[in-house]
């Protein structure tokens, strides 16, 4: 990689749909440079943006980025290798935001993911400059399209503009939906970012935006044609750079997921309600019989069925990530471990244990109190293994949601394999009911049985996260 | 004759399933061929 370059794309070939969109495409982005990507609709500008961000696979060629320690890293190549991007800013053509996020949260997330330390006063000043402070606590879904676009653009340039070391900002049609004042502000920031040594790549149709560029690359017939840019536009003063706090994409993702769920607990409710209905149905139907008379297996299955139902329910994270390319934004920022991260963070970790206990309390009323105490002491063990099952189920749902029309297929067909971990856990609970807990590594003991259930879930999870991204 | 009903119903279900599937596939092939062949012939000419 040439010294002085922040990004180098070498001879990439990308296929989209049934056609080859880019062929032998190469570009380099130097420090302090603004490049405009232009071309007809469908020419491949967005595809090139996504290839540079490492989101899509390459048929040939590779994409390299310069790191903050001046070494370079191949973030994507045609052998299927993928590595995380250094801190950067990204604005996708669709906004890349979930409707549940608040405005201030969005900016905070963009800065955290890129490792910039911030507090509320810094965020408020930023939002003020961009005319969004009055909406800082509003949800993205409640903003007009113009304000949403403004926020999305700010999320893509703030992580770069507020950084001291040179970084790259990638913007796909940033001016679309912006009013004149916002566009002028954007132009001023972009020229100022270039002055500070940052690199900016903008895919655009907008003639005014093209004028800001130092170089113009036209995407035409799957290749790139270069022409000089005008480098025009006023330079505004950027806010003071922020201190570096270390890139924390996973922690930011976790915080984001928890915030979304606290604000709108659709995942918790969506999992808990069918589970509770199952408990009540089981109680209503077997209430008049003593389940223990029919063997502990029946009771164990009835008790664990509700947490199982909560574990395999479709996770809210897959719906949130599919909103406005939100998942693609996170995918670019989190990198190759995004899929395992989504599946763990998005699964049901708080419901299985309380649900198992609630299930036992409701359904096992006629069980001998000694047995009940023993079960209550150890019910957490199969319930914790149910969490592993939940993670495997989430990974399968996410696998199906990769398709462009996930609503047209039934992910539950892939979940059938999770019956076996459930059967093993039922077996384990049945053993605890019959003989009490045995802390031995006996093959037919509850401990080993629970281990096997978790092992099967883990194998399913590994397969579901490994194949799609290789 | 224990199990005769099971055998008969199995064969009935499977016969219908495979028969209908093959019928649909062959008619689909015939339809597509009759639509596409004339266009292909014109292009070749």
């Amino acid at each position: 990689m040439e010294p002085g370059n922040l990004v180098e794309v070498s001879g990439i070939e990308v296929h989209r749909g049934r056609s080859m969109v880019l062929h032998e495409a190469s570009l380099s982005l130097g420090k302090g440079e603004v490049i405009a990507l232009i071309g007809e609709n469908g020419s491949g500008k967005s595809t090139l943006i996504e290839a540079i961000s490492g989101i899509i696979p390459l048929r040939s060629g590779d994409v390299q980025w310069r790191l903050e320690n001046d070494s370079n890293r191949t973030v994507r190549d045609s052998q299927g290798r993928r590595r995380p991007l250094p801190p950067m800013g990204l604005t996708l053509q669709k906004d890349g935001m979930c409707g549940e996020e608040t405005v201030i949260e969005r900016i905070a997330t963009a800065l955290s993911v890129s490792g910039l330390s911030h507090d509320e006063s810094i965020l408020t000043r930023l939002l003020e400059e961009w005319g969004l402070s009055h909406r800082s606590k509003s949800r993205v879904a409640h903003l007009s399209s113009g304000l949403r676009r403004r926020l999305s653009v700010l999320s893509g340039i703030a992580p770069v503009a507020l950084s001291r070391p040179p970084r790259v900002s990638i913007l796909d049609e940033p001016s679309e939906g912006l009013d004149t004042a916002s566009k002028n502000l954007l132009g001023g920031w972009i020229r100022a970012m270039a002055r500070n040594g940052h690199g900016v790549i903008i895919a655009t149709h907008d003639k005014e935006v093209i004028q800001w560029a130092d170089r113009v690359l036209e995407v035409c017939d799957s290749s790139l044609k270069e022409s000089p840019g005008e480098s025009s536009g006023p330079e505004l003063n950027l806010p003071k750079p922020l201190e570096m706090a270390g890139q924390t994409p996973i922690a930011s993702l976790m915080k984001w997921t928890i915030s979304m769920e606290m604000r709108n607990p659709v995942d918790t409710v969506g999992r808990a309600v069918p589970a509770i209905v199952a408990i009540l149905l089981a109680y209503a139907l077997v209430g008049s019989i003593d389940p223990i008379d029919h063997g502990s297996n029946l009771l164990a299955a009835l008790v664990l069925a509700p947490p199982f139902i909560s574990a395999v329910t479709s996770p809210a994270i897959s719906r949130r990530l599919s909103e406005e390319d939100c998942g693609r934004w996170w995918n670019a920022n989190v990198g190759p471990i995004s899929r395992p991260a989504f599946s763990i963070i998005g699964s049901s970790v708080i419901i299985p244990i309380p649900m198992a206990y609630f299930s036992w309390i409701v359904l096992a009323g006629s069980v001998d109190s000694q047995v009940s105490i023993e079960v209550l002491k150890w019910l957490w063990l199969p319930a914790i293994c149910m969490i592993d099952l939940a993670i495997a189920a989430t990974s399968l749902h996410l696998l199906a949601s990769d398709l462009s029309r996930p609503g047209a297929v039934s992910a539950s067909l892939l979940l059938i394999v999770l019956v076996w971990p459930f059967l093993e856990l039922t077996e384990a609970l049945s053993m605890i009911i019959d003989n009490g807990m045995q802390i031995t590594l006996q093959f037919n003991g509850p401990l080993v049985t629970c281990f096997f259930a978790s092992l099967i879930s883990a194998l399913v999870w590994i397969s579901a996260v490994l194949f799609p991204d290789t | 004759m224990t199990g005769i009903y099971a055998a008969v119903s199995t064969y009935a279900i499977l016969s219908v399933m495979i028969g209908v599937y093959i019928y649909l596939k062959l008619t689909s092939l015939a339809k597509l061929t009759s639509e596409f062949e004339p266009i292909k012939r014109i292009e070749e000419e």
Partner: protein
Amino acid sequence: MDVIKKIGVNLTLLGLLGAYFTAILGFFWAPSVDPDQWNAPEAYRIVYWHVPFAWTSFLAFCLLFIGSASWYVSRSETGWRLINVGSELGLLFGAGVIISGPIWGSVEWGVPWDWGDVRLNTYALLTALAIFLVMALRSQPDGEGTRDTLAAIGLFGFVLVPITAIATTLWRDRHPGLVIVDSEDSGIDPEIRLILMLGTISFMAIFIGLTIVIDSIHRIKSEIEQQNISKDRVGLT
């Protein structure tokens, strides 16, 4: 191509005739089994279709696996065609296994399903995978992204086979003797063997014939789509 299509159609029809003839032989010519050794002696006649369905579904799943691996590793167009064919045939023949198996099981052994039976459960899982793939192939726009995802799902499904084998073995070790599934070829009468062979040959003919038919349909649809893509590019005139 025309000749091959005709061969495919004829093989399919011939195979279907052979399969129906096998069924008739199975009812009216095949010998009865010892009623003391079987709970539902007449139900054994299901075997004449159950075994061929199992064999052909195994072949279909092999095609699906090879196709998935082929696309996954080298984005081979042939691999994609194998996925298309393998998933449809896997669904058809796999469904045959998981319909006939439980019906037979419920009358002969009193239980329609055995979670410890490796074969039955593996077939069920792969049939579910085939249903998923067929639904996806019909609903999703064709393209590299879709193909990559479906090939990955296809491979994932096959990794589930050894996982299922482990899981069912563990279950069977704890629940032995719930269902005993006899091997189909233990001590077979020559007449039974003959009818089974006829059935297997007939189903193989159906399998090969349908492979050609489904592939031909897929090819024609692809060519039509290519034409449509060219017309898309012309735009408004």
